[in-house]
């Protein structure tokens, strides 16, 4: 006789927990796995080819962006600040974009990237499971993906989420 009431309460708790959460937010499927194998040209120097070993040796942020993405513009200044003032190593992944436009963007707005990968077809983006720019990954010194932040990087996001991770994975080397 009381079972229906009890079930209703249990359901209520689960539903309550769901309020306010973003149902479209997806955790990366690559957490704990190495960055997918890739071979991409450098954005500024088309003759230089980068491979997945660019992540080995130092913890880095991998920022997926494009000139077509308005939110990327919003976070760009904060990325420049992160790279310059906090000394964070940021690798840029120019996703499905036009090389000239991208270079123009970096020239006029500043370049926070230690190096920039040019991915016009979006192959690496696809392999990473990128579903909406901007996205920022935390990759440890062994090239293992540790975290993905979907959306704009703000100082708050850095302080609360990314920084602790960078420090944690930076120490081990």
């Amino acid at each position, binding site marked *: 006789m009381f079972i229906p009431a009890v079930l*209703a309460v249990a*359901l*209520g708790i689960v539903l309550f927990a*769901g*309020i306010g*959460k973003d*149902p479209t937010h997806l955790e990366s499927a690559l957490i704990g796995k190495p960055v997918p194998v890739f071979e991409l040209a450098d954005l500024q120097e088309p003759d230089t080819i980068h491979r997945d070993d660019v992540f080995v040796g130092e913890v880095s942020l991998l920022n997926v962006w494009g000139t077509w993405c308005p939110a990327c513009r919003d976070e760009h200044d904060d990325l420049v600040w992160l790279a310059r003032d906090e000394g964070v190593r940021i690798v840029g992944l120019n996703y499905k974009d036009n090389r000239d436009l991208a270079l123009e963007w970096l020239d006029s707005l500043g370049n926070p990237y230690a190096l920039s990968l040019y991915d016009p077809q979006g192959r690496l983006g696809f392999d990473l499971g990128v579903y909406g720019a901007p996205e920022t990954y935390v990759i440890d010194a062994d090239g293992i993906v540790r975290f993905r932040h979907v959306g704009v990087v703000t100082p708050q996001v850095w302080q609360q989420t990314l920084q602790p991770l960078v420090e944690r994975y930076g120490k081990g080397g």
Partner: protein
Amino acid sequence: MYPELGQFSLILSLLLAVLLATVPLVGALSGRDHLQAFARPLASGLFVFVAIAFALLTHAFVTDDFSVAYVANNSNSLLPWYYKFSAVWGGHEGSLLLWILMLAGWTLAVAVFSRRLPSVMIAQVLAVMGMVTVGFLLFILITSNPFERLLPNVPADGADLNPLLQDFGLIVHPPMLYMGYVGFSVAFAFAIAALINGRLDAAWARWSRPWTTVAWSFLTVGIALGSWWAYYELGWGGWWFWDPVENASLLPWLAGTALVHSLAVTEKRGVFKSWTVLLAIVTFALSLLGTFLVRSGVLTSVHAFASDPTRGAFLLGLLAITIVSSLTLYAFRAPVVHTRTRYGSLSREIFLLLNNVLLVAATLLVLVGTLYPLVLDYLGAGRLSIGEPFYNLTFSPLAIAVGLMLGAGIFSRWKRTDGGWLGRRLLWPAALSLVLSCAVLLTYGGFTPWAFAGLLAAAWVAVTTFMDLWDKSGSRHGRWHGLKRQSRSYYGMVLGHLGVAMTMAGATVVSNYGVERDVRMSPGDSAGIGNLQVTFSELGQRQGANFVAQYGRFDITRDGQLIATLYPEKRQYHVQRNVMTEAGIDAGLTRDLFVALGEKVADDAWAVRIQYKPLIRWLWLGALFMAGGGALAIADRRYRIKVRSERPAIDDSRSGGQDEGVAEAL
């Protein structure tokens, strides 16, 4: 000034609702007639003020009053007038007001059409409905006020109604749905009233039945409209997607169907009383749950209103209070009656109980499927998606089982049915159904197990229904006399069940024998589908009221003979800049031809989706039949308001039982 009046009107409604929720209830519990008598006038007053508020909001839309935030967000000066009217319920706040209007309307209807009910009962029922109204009025006034103003920065023009909603479907689908959702509150109120005064007898069931049936009919039409709308508006030819919001409407429908049948048993035989009460509470609870899911942002859906955690929390609180308190009341007050009535294992009671088991299992399945991802996410066990492939495997067998059970149970008798007799009765229908389904299979070409099962179930339902009609209309005075003698209630059942058969047939055939092609076409190209040729004859542009469209002209021919010309288009609306796909559909009773423009794949080449959809209209026609059956059933003689001797309604369980000379309807 008018929007403020609207808000004021809502506040007045809240006051009246609070009074309605308390005064008659106090009167009922303490036996004070004069307090009980407040119920009807309060219900009328409540309706009047809610209607005024709704009218004022409509006025704001029709006069382009963009100082009202809700109007500015959902309308535009270029919007055609009929969409301005329906844009009132195009967003969260307005649709909530529509919900409340319907609630007040149903409350008034109950107040008006229940002269013969005992005053105590009606006082309690209206008080419960008042309580529900209080909850929703608080919700709208505190979190979702449609009359909020944007002063002093009144925008020059509005943000326009979402183009997907600029369609006939918006005008009809939500009102029908809400009539259904809200209508189940009446059954709920009756159930709660019965629990409060401990009077859980067959009379309660008889009073509840017509209200529940009407609500169910509206919900059936609402769901069918939604499916039809999605089919022609969304551009990819689907008619049901198992989207959480769609499921939210299916849940009360499934439970409501079980309730309608369970009420029949309780009315006729006085059994399963506790179960029926629980079902009435659960059905309305599912309506409320649906409201919550759509407006809280907890689940992803293309249907969902813009969500807001405050609203979600408030609504959940409202939901929790209503459901937990009613279920607790049930736990304490539902009689654990060990009825002394006996019924055999093949009695109509048992068949209807099994019907309930299957329908409740289906309800549970859809509920679990919709909420499971939430639960897993809560437990940190991952992000799951549950969609069509899952439901096709799990829901279909249940639907088929319901069909089979229906056919078998139609011949059953109350209290006891002889097994041998029943078995013999079913032989001919079984054979006929087999032949019929094989014939259909051959016509469409190709045997698949699912198609066979679905068609068999549909044929089975139709054949047994007709056979039962044949049996019952046999008469000494001729067939016509026999047919005339049947009650409307019986014909309602026949029509309803035939509707089920039609819908099952339509769903089975279109799912198994529909053909779909995604082809790359340039003007001049031609593609074949089945034995038809579809030629992309020309590409053009046209100007609409508030959009510009690129259309394609497609000529469909068979053996050189022109069958149809379709004009699918891609529309870009001026204000919101989204691109909408309008499909070109050649509708037919036996099949639809569907052409839609997809993406542009090259300078002059488009991806074109061409579909052949056999029997798809049967899906919605079947639903109309079902709803029609419900309407017919409540037009039955026994529900007519008799103007004869006005006996004070003290114990009214006897009237209406005289029509036993006719066949056993439900």
